[in-house]
């Protein structure tokens, strides 16, 4: 991990063993409005990685694996239970304490649901202008408006003026997601986290969003964390891929490497189950017995062991380390 550091290059984002534990609250409200407590959940359980400027890291995993929590931790929508996040070598904790606005500007997030990303009561113009005003970009509103129009046109939302007066519910999901990306990028962040940015969109328009995200990130030399359950898409956009299972990274490496040559049994299963639209392609999906796990009762040993087709008795006993296999490849399995 310290590879880049030794080269004298400070990574844009460095995540060191962050954990996020919840005490699960049942979503049931009692008559008097209290929330009832439940068990402890290890949503993110010791994740570490680094990310360089302009790099795209894809994070894949099934629902409940903690990938969305990881995303929220990275942009500090939630505070980690332990561990630290360094942005360009500075602790996020310090940054946010010293200058919250500046920190927010540095890290941005693209959300899954574009239909809900904007306050439904605000026009697109107000959404943009408010953001710019908050971050003291532009001298006055007419100048800001000019900036916004320019940006909108650059991503093909033409004529830009016609969008400004409209309200979020009057736009399609694709348009909204583009506006969302645009707004984040306007702040020139160094890290952008995109949490399933296309999963709510129709298949026919996903590609545009993916492409736009990729292009703007590269253009601004922004580091991108792309969170998704869709391996094909993730592979398409990512430089590197991290596979998560029950709050931990089980495998990480260059996108093509992980995709074509998965090593961890879970990654293998995931990729073998990966859907294809070519009816001619034959694939023999690896079956995983048992139910998809919940991070409530974590097994003592390897978290994947109960479902692992190659699990040995010792897998259930001792935890696994994320081992470095060189060339940026990390795998958390003793069998590899």
């Amino acid at each position: 991990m310290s590879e880049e550091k030794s080269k004298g290059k400070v990574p844009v984002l460095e995540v060191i063993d962050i954990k996020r534990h919840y005490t699960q609250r049942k979503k049931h409200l009692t008559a008097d409005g209290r929330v009832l407590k439940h068990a402890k959940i290890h949503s993110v359980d010791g994740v570490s990685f680094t990310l360089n400027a302009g790099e795209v890291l894809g994070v894949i995993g099934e629902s409940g694996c903690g990938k969305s929590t990881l995303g929220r931790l990275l942009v500090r929508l939630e505070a980690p239970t332990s561990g630290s996040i360094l942005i360009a070598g500075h602790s996020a904790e310090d940054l946010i304490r010293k200058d919250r606005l500046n920190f927010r500007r540095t890290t941005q997030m693209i959300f899954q649901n574009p239909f809900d990303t904007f306050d439904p009561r605000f026009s697109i113009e107000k959404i943009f202008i408010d953001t710019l005003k908050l971050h003291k970009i532009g001298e006055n509103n007419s100048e800001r408006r000019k900036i916004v129009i320019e940006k909108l046109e650059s991503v093909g939302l033409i004529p830009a003026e016609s969008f400004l007066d409209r309200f979020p519910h009057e736009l399609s999901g694709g348009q909204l997601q583009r506006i969302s990306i645009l707004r984040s990028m306007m702040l020139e962040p160094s890290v952008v986290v995109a949490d399933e940015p296309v999963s709510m969109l129709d298949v026919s328009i996903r590609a545009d969003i993916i492409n736009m995200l990729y292009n703007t990130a590269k253009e601004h030399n922004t580091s991108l964390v792309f969170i998704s359950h869709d391996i094909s898409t993730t592979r398409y956009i990512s430089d590197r891929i991290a596979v998560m299972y029950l709050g931990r990274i089980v495998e990480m490496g260059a996108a093509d490497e992980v995709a074509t040559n998965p090593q961890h049994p879970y990654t293998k299963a995931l990729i073998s189950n990966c859907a294809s639209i070519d009816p001619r392609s034959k694939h023999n999906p690896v079956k995983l017995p048992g139910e998809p796990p919940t991070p409530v009762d974590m097994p003592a040993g390897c978290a994947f062991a109960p479902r692992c087709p190659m699990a040995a008795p010792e897998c259930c006993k001792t935890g696994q380390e994320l081992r470095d296999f060189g060339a940026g490849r990390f795998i958390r399995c003793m069998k590899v």
Partner: protein
Amino acid sequence: MALLSIRDLSVTYHSGTRHVKALNSLNLDINEGESLGIVGESGSGKTTLIMAILRLLPKGSVEISGEAFLNGKELISLKQEELLKMRWEEMALVFQKSMNALSPVHKIGVLMSDIYRIHKPEVSKRDARRRIEELLELVNLPSRVYDLYPHELSGGMMQRVSIALSLMFNPKLLILDEATTALDVVTQTQILEEIVALEKKLGITRMMITHDMSVVASTCKNVAVLYAGCLLETGLTQDVLVEPLHPYTQGLIKSFPVFDNDTHQPLQSIGGSLPDLSSPPPGCIFEPRCIKACDMCRESMPRLKEYGQGRFAACHLAGGEINV
């Protein structure tokens, strides 16, 4: 012979002054023992189609025209009593939101055996329970599920319960409405495989509705592409997905990232968005978004035309010629 044939089925929703034509003269056939995947994005009328066939659309504000024959019986005009008998015995359904598909305050087994005894009132409660446990076993669920409440199961398990429920009377036609969409890839593949295996075993004809073409690609013999209430293309899956005739199908396939390919072939979207169905374009329904659209497309809606064995497409330009 076609188990289900749909003829000129149209559904219009009326609300105030708006009239939304959710299904527009749909024609479809499913042969016995085959499987049909209906692909469509949101707003394409997939769910409306099922609801219309099952006669579950709300009365009053909805207008249905056309016919749908199941095993020779016309469903749209069928009498209520006969319909009640046909439901579930001849056609069963697995719902999209399986979590909400069962009464939350009743135990799964109790509800299932109650349903069982609608069509088999003579069966004792004990026998009903045995049958239900059998069904649960069939979908790889432990029999203790019988005494659980829906909220106590995970999404995958509930989906299995839904499937078990739908197989209760070995229906001739099994309809799956986005039945696996909410599930994880691994679970989804597993359940789909189980369904395919079961239908072979029980001789069930399957109609599957989804927006995920990869699901269709791996499990369906035939595919129909639905867009804005119109059937644009249909045929054998291996034909349609490999060599799509309709520009919409082509666009869909291009926007799907291909995994097996090593190269970063750029993805493409279909520009624009769904037309307003209360005032559809005068010509081809897909014309506003079609990159190939010509003048003719703006004038008239192309009709479904056969291009070989069971292969249909509705496009003026399909097959490189102009179809009038």
